[in-house]
């Protein structure tokens, strides 16, 4: 219990200054390129985990769906990809930073004028929409904007501006959610 106590009730520390956090993230991203030739990412793992589940429940469905076929067709293991360990590593890394800085807490982060329930529905919906778009664009803010941005991939810069464009265009209409 002492241990749990010490993990969950640490004094909450302030977040790191954005430019410093960005510089550290940049070094991490560079090391990823240096060692593996790949950048960072995570949304690919979401669809690979999906594919693995479908492969267990309905293997014939995998063979009839071209998108799943590429990842899980035949004897392919959809989880056998670099992005899957990155995904689980990120979960663990987030947890560790939260634990070290006293930020492990079962709570909901939301704007001041909405209920928890609204926030939950919206975050579920938002996650659904985001990942749909991420698979369509072949990568999310990490796999495209961040990694592709650093390698100067033309398409990734277009995607980055599209993400910000979409969010800014809608922000005014959903301001009740946040301010």
């Amino acid at each position, binding site marked *: 219990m002492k241990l749990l106590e010490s993990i969950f009730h640490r004094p909450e520390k302030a977040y790191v200054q954005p430019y410093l956090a960005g510089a550290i*993230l940049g070094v991490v991203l560079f090391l990823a390129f*240096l060692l593996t030739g790949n950048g*960072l990412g995570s949304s690919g793992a979401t669809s690979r985990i999906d594919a693995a589940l479908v492969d267990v429940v309905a293997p014939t469905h995998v063979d009839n769906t071209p998108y799943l076929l590429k990842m899980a067709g035949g004897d392919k293991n959809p989880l056998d990809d670099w992005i899957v360990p990155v995904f689980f590593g990120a979960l*663990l890394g987030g947890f560790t930073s939260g634990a070290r800085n006293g930020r492990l807490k*079962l709570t909901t982060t939301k704007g001041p004028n909405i209920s928890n329930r609204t926030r939950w529905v919206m975050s579920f919906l938002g996650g659904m929409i985001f990942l749909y778009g*991420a698979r369509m664009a072949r990568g999310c803010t990490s796999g495209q904007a961040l990694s592709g941005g650093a390698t100067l991939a033309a398409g*990734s810069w*277009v995607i980055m501006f599209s993400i910000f464009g979409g969010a800014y265009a809608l922000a005014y209409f959903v301001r009740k959610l946040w301010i």
Partner: protein
Amino acid sequence: MTFPLEAFTTVSAANPWTYVVFAGIGFAFGYTLEMAGFGDSRKLAAQFYFKELTVLKVMFTAIAVAMTLLFGAVGLGLIDFSLVWVNPTYLGSGVVGGLIMGVGFIVGGFCPTTSLASASTGRIDGMLFMLGGFVGAFLFGETEGLFDHWYNESGYLGRLTLDQVFGLPVSVLVPIIVLVALFMFWGAEQLERAFGDKDLDREPGWRKFGAAGLFAAALGVLVLGSPSLEDRYQRLSFKRMEVVKQADGKPLSVPRVYSADDMLAKRLVFTSPAEAFKARYLQAIKPVYLDVRSEADYNLYHLVDSVNVPLKRLATIVPDLLSEPAANTVFITIGNDEAAAVEAWKMLVASRVQNVYVLEGGINHWIEVFGADDTSLKPLANARPDQLRYDFSAALGSRYKSCAPNPIDHEELDFQARIVLQLKRDKSGGGCG
């Protein structure tokens, strides 16, 4: 040693360390995002109401720092950029997918990886975003079939980088992008002051030194420039198995590593006309015959299905050769003799095009082997080197009989196999795929 390390380009059960490396990278990634405050959706959403531009600051600092380090390392010859995954450009699905992501961002308050940092620290909204993500990704898989063609073709431009778009060398573009990023940070701070009531005097003073340091590093990239083709050529290495006789007479295969010049000197890259011809009928490889002679020579005589790319124009198709063809494509460069074809080989391998070979003896040797009994091809006595040694009655192109030898007539051919298929990295081996 050239980075990225070949052993870590993808995970494999044969090398469990690959999982450790990727999990470690993921760990650092998640840790940094949480540390920056991205486990809190309010911090992310504030970006879109100009209250707090942490998202922009973190993201563009990361991009600017990683880009500067990456192209600095490329300039130093530490990293081979052609082995670095560059997301291929799909304008159609990219723009639409990006806009959809933007909607998800402002509605859900996270992006996929920040939701991991959020969920893992106990935020219920982060967990639900993750869960919704699984549903969204599943729905995409189910509906992709409806717009498969558009998804794969619309605005597809392959491996395209901004320096190609703007026609600027990378080493010039890097400091420009850093300057733009620094200008954006300045603007972001002004917005925070105006909309978020932030007191800029309380921002740390070191950020100005950081900005100066980053710009100085970017100027370093400019000074380094990009490694020339010649530098890259000198650093190439090729692996081949060599069979040696042991003392007891038994053959033994030994792995050898050769430089590009060794490969030429040992003639390991010269494929005989017989092998080049047989390659057409092999299931395992897909030969592409690159005829690098002048258009005039090509019109006189060329192999059937060969593609004419005169040596002068070869550089322009290199990006396509790097990104387009199937992984089992084998390129065979063809000249009149060997000189031009060897030049083409050097340029292609230095650009990291895989599986490039030279047609041994060029077209002249090909005709010796396959067209010896064709009376319409008259040998010329005094042809200069790397010129056609035959007189052609007409520019028939590939309509001479020997341009497409009959496989039945040439069932049995003796040759020493030189082509060793080196599978290049699978497209799905990179990116967020």
